[in-house]
């Protein structure tokens, strides 16, 4: 059947559409990534572990000095302080090895060729210079407040002499401020160099992996955005494929039976179709997820999504599978009703073939193009609905997905940090756009009269 459709005239028309071929190629790349993730290229633990300070920028965007200071503050006074302990006792600590391990951020750790005493030395120096930086920073903040105060006083005072005095004072303070600026600049460089000495950015293969982890920055709790966004490709394919396969097969079977046999089969199927399509689809999805998740028989499956993220997807599959088949069923029924009046079906009946055989061999294969079109339409629908369901708290749980990333990222956006939402959106945009182009081209090639 696949071979026949590959050789058909519609397929030739499809491959002549260059944009559609490029789009199919893009889908292929996404599929390869999804397969790689499924075979363990990115594990769930790697999506959950901390690699960077919270809300660190990705490539292209340079942090300003204040953001650099905040990052250093996180590295030294939060992360290293809690994992390495106070600088004085590190070399004499019996479990220094486990402390080193805990200090490591993914591939970026304290190198093994540094002995415990060397680590202690660098760590002490780093800690001291950061304390110095912290003081200088606070002093400079104070000075800035003072300058702002004097500026305010100048604007409020009406006495010319007083204004001149204040202006002189302002000049002195500005000169002092410049020395502070130089000091802070030097100290920031020094602390950054010290941090690089203690925890150098890895090179070689580990460096490549670390670079991949950090190139899109980190989310609010310091997890790698790149890892999460690429892991989500697998989730998108999982949700999209399951939803599309379930819906297309249910829709084709029921639509084929209804269209071919007519009478009470048709009535029963159309009754189900009109019942399900009389509830708005988002309400239907939400209620179905709610019902399946609270199911008395296996509700404990869904109680702990952190440990069983795969099972937590079952309600979503069920809701998609039970909702999206309606459209396919309607179209297939219409097409089958048309096909069964054609001469070759009559010929098959005249030869004496059974009705089931005619349906399976002569009618259903001629609806393949509808299956393909609907497959890609449902795939898009499932990916987009996943985002909405995840935002409503009814979708993916316990693992990253584009929906989870976008809905968690809304607080980042409100804090002027865009990397989480934009990364998820960009990857999703590519896949959905490719599918949109492919389904348009399929429709043009196989079903040109369709509006």
């Amino acid at each position, binding site marked *: 059947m696949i071979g026949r459709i590959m050789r058909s005239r519609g397929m030739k028309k499809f491959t002549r559409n260059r944009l559609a071929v490029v789009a199919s190629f893009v889908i292929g790349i996404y599929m390869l990534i999804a397969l790689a993730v499924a075979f363990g290229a990115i594990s769930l633990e790697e999506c959950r572990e901390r690699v960077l300070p919270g809300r660190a920028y990705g490539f292209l965007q340079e942090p300003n000095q204040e953001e650099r200071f905040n990052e250093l503050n996180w590295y030294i006074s939060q992360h290293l302080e809690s994992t390495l302990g106070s600088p004085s006792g590190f070399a004499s600590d019996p479990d220094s090895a486990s402390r080193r391990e805990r200090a490591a951020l993914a591939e970026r750790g304290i190198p093994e060729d540094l002995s415990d005493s060397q680590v202690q030395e660098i760590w002490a120096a780093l800690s001291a210079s950061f304390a110095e930086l912290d003081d200088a920073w606070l002093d400079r903040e104070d000075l800035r407040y003072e300058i702002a105060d004097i500026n305010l006083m100048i604007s409020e005072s009406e006495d010319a002499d007083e204004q001149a005095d204040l202006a002189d004072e302002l000049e002195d303070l500005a000169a002092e401020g410049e020395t502070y600026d130089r000091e802070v600049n030097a100290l920031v460089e020094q602390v950054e160099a010290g941090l690089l000495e203690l925890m150098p950015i890895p090179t070689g293969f580990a460096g490549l992996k670390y670079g991949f982890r950090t190139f899109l920055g980190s989310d609010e709790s310091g997890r790698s955005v790149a890892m999460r966004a690429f892991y989500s490709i697998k989730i998108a394919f999982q949700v999209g494929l399951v939803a599309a396969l379930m819906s297309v097969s249910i829709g084709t079977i029921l639509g084929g039976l209804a269209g071919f046999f007519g009478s009470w089969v048709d009535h029963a199927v159309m*009754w189900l179709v*009109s*019942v399900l399509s*009389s*509830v*708005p*689809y*988002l*309400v239907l999805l*939400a*209620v179905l997820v*709610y*019902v*399946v*998740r*609270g*199911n*008395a028989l296996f*509700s404990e499956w869904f109680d702990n999504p952190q440990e069983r993220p795969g099972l937590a997807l079952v309600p979503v599959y069920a809701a998609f599978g039970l909702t999206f088949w309606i459209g396919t069923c309607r179209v297939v029924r219409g097409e089958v009703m048309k096909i069964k009046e054609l001469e070759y079906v009559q010929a098959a009946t005249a030869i004496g073939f059974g009705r089931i055989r005619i349906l399976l061999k002569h009618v259903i294969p001629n609806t393949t193009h509808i299956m393909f079109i609907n497959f890609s339409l449902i795939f898009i629908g499932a990916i*987009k609905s996943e*985002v*909405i369901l995840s*935002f*409503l*708290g*009814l979708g993916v749980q316990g693992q990253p997905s*584009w*929906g989870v990333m*976008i*809905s968690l*990222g*809304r607080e980042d*956006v*409100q804090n002027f940090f865009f990397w989480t*939402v934009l990364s998820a*959106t960009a990857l*999703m*945009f590519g896949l*959905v*756009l490719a599918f*949109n*182009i492919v389904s*348009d081209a399929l429709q043009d090639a196989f079903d040109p009269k369709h*509006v």
Partner: protein
Amino acid sequence: MWAFIVRRILYNIPVYLSIILLLMAGLRYARDPVRSQLSKNPTQAERDAVKQKMGLDQPFVVQYVKFLGKTLTLDFSEESWSQKGRSVGDVIKKAIPPSLSITVPTLMASASISIVIALISAYFRGRTVDRTLVVLAVLGMSISFLVYIIFGQFFGAFWPNQVTQTTPFAITGYEPWMPLLTEGASLRNWVEFCMLPVIIGVVVAIGYDTRFYRAVMVEETTKDYIVTAMAKGASKPKIIFVHMLKNAMIPIITRIMATLPFLITGSILLEMYFKIPGMGFELITAINADDFPVIQAFVAVFAGLFILSIILTDVLYALVDPRVRLS
């Protein structure tokens, strides 16, 4: 005509009865309805007591007939489980005005704007303007609704607030604005709380609608009467805006009517995000809080509204296109 209307109504009665049947059965048997009302490991006696209090111990048929009767007489006097002291009917009544103040403007604005864009696109068919519009529509459709909302709120409310210290639109929330319904309400409240969600909703809807309307117009251009008009020497604007628009009205009306019920729920996301206490917001809150009576009543009402609008669409359709009445 009347025979057609009666037929449509008669056809939809069993459909509605089945929806209520499936809904009630699903909520009662596919999941444990009283789980959220009980302690961790309840005894059978406790379970029975709660069930009896909620009226869930009666035979299913009795419950079905009772709920159906209440729904048809719009008597939702049951108490909500999560919002103590409020009846379900009160929740529904309070939720309708906020929902309508978002959906009605969104529907009107998006329909008129996208028809205009589609006409422009059809007028310049195959040329740069048309191609750009089509590409823009496809690109716009590939971005999630949620992303539009996030950035709409950011650039509409957060960013102006940070940069210029003014608040054209509220970040979240809702205040009544219809002057006749509440004291001291003014249209300004609508601009502050509803305008931004409406703009976002319109922007998203335009992408989908334009594509559909353009396809309708393009199909219309291949019809014989257009060729005749061209042969007679009618000008292009006249053909498109007079001949074609009139004939394209049938699918356009159907489409508008068909999106009507979707807008009731299509705003679920907008309502949840901007914390506007409308129908969608109340339904999702009820689902997350396991509020059994509210879920049941809301789905019943949603389905009822949906079916009414489907019947209305059919009737309108039959009104503009007499051929439909025969089938």
